[in-house]
């Protein structure tokens, strides 16, 4: 069990290391460097020299990579291309805002998704399942900016219930984002509910068809006792992994939603820094998002192992 843990941990660390190499060499391979990108047409002569000096771009790539990686491990992500602000500071506030958005969506979406997933799974092919499953396909497949636009049209323009755009500045305390945050939360909740619902549904169907559920039924165990005591603990286990993927997606992939609602999170900062060609910031955000992705998936795997007695004994026996 412990060996399994350590092995997973090691593989996760290897993946993050590979990501950092990909990010660094990817940016290296692009034509130009942080300074030519930042200075654009003025990138010549003294100005370029000074910038390269400030960013330390005159040193060999391997040396710079080691510096960068070592700094990142200690939480120091360097300075932005104009050399003035610490990236850790810049990113910190945005990461906080993204976490707020993610936390609200998760708090709303996960219980809802699991409840609806169980309902659709238990009443498979009944009207309620067909309705909800079809709605889930719609919510999942329609591009986020489309569903966001439709919801703004509906709730903000036509009904006037919720503000359709976030005007709160990036550094404002969390409480000030209400009620502006509600519409983006609603869109994100819709998408993630659809994904988790489908997963839970198929898992419930699979478990309810299992031998031990049939055995319990034949034994005369009441239906709801079967569902809650026998089936659900097993059926909900795979949900851990989907929720993990959702968290990773919420913290790195909701760029479009943040742009649509003007939400000052990590995603919009990513777009802005790419448009401004602020490569050190792009590198930093990429590394953070990738680390979150690996970390969250790793935690989900470990959590599944702890929660599932079968996996536990399996690994112990093998050892």
């Amino acid at each position, binding site marked *: 069990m412990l060996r399994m843990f350590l092995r997973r941990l090691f*593989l996760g660390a*290897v*993946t*993050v290391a*590979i*990501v950092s190499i*990909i*990010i660094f060499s*990817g*940016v290296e391979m*692009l*034509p*130009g460097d942080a300074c030519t990108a930042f200075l654009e047409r003025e990138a010549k002569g003294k100005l370029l020299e000074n910038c390269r000096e400030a960013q330390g771009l005159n040193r060999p790539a391997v040396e710079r990579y080691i510096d960068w990686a070592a700094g990142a491990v200690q939480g120091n992500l360097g300075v932005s291309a104009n050399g003035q602000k610490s990236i850790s500071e810049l990113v910190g506030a945005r990461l906080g805002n993204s976490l707020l958005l993610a936390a609200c969506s998760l708090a709303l979406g996960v219980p809802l998704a699991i409840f609806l997933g169980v309902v659709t799974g238990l009443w498979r092919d009944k009207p309620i399942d067909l309705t909800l499953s079809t709605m889930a*396909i*719609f919510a*999942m*497949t*329609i*591009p*986020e*900016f*489309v569903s966001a*636009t*439709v919801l*703004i*049209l509906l709730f903000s*323009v036509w009904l006037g219930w919720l503000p359709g755009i976030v005007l709160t500045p990036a550094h404002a305390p969390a409480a000030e984002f209400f009620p502006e945050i509600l519409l983006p939360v609603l869109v994100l909740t819709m998408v993630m509910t659809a*994904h988790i619902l*489908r*997963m839970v*549904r*198929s898992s419930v169907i699979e478990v309810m068809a299992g031998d031990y559920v049939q055995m319990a039924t034949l034994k005369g165990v009441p239906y709801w006792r079967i569902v809650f005591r026998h089936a659900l603990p097993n059926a909900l286990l*795979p949900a851990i*992994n*989907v929720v993990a*993927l959702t968290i*990773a*997606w919420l913290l*790195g*992939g909701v*760029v*479009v939603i943040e*742009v649509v609602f003007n939400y000052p999170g990590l*995603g919009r900062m*990513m*777009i802005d820094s*790419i*448009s401004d*060609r602020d490569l050190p910031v*792009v590198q930093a*955000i*990429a590394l953070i*998002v*990738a680390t979150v*992705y*690996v970390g969250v998936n790793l935690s989900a795997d470990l959590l599944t192992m702890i929660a599932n007695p079968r996996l536990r004994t399996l690994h112990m026996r093998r050892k």
Partner: protein
Amino acid sequence: MSVASVPNENTRLARFLSVLRDVMARPSGAVGLTLVMAHLLLAIISPLIVPYDYKAMNSAMMLTGPEAAHWLGTDHLGRDVFTRVLLGGREALLVTGIATPIAVTWGGFVGIFFGLVGGRIDEVMMRVVDAFLSLPWILKMLVLIVTFGTGIEVLIPTLAFFYGIPVIRIARAATHDVVARDFVSAARARGHRRITIIRRELLPNVLDTLMVEGAMRWSWMLLAFSSLSFLGFGVSPPTPDWGLMIADARGFMSFAPWGVLGPVIALSSLIIGINLTADALAKALGIDRAQKAPV
């Protein structure tokens, strides 16, 4: 039991027809395939049937509502929205239509190859794939697009490259299911070269998975493409594109919602159509997609 040799043309055609019939027999497949076919047909013939020139501006008729002359009204430059909705999918279908087969082909071959080879190199390769997948798609693509420009000649290879990477994983997993079977061992014992084993033993067995994967990749690619257009990194104006049209019309949504609704319905129906088709195809081929999480 399984198809170990390459089937000849006739059985291939027969299988294709039977799968097609199975897909059409399912409600999701019938609706989905009809939507997709209608979109493809419209994309081909729309330049011949549009009522107006998509570039023609008319300052006297800006943001007018739906009427007999302009079924979906006009946009902020006085261009006919219906015309632009009809034409708005061509660029997206062209780019993704070329990029999807490339992505599935290269990802499929690499995945099958490493699935067959196995061992340490396979292990390392999978870590690299994981590393690529842990980066948000939009970041990877935007960095290339901002550096090299937004033309088709940049978008197609970029999409084809990045959307091939998850295919590696799928193809490898599907290969692992096959590679331990007797007919592969037999082919190895006969001394066939790797390329022969891949072509004659593995590919026919992995092809079904790749087909379904291709359909899913196509819809994700369309999503990515229209999102890029929406953000201003895809199609450049005045070429009509749904993502771009929605972005443009969003500002006038409060008093001219028709500008948004047309492209919204067009884009959604195409992507839903592809997804429904993929769903029915997966069921018809007996591949369960429900367990797979989104990437």
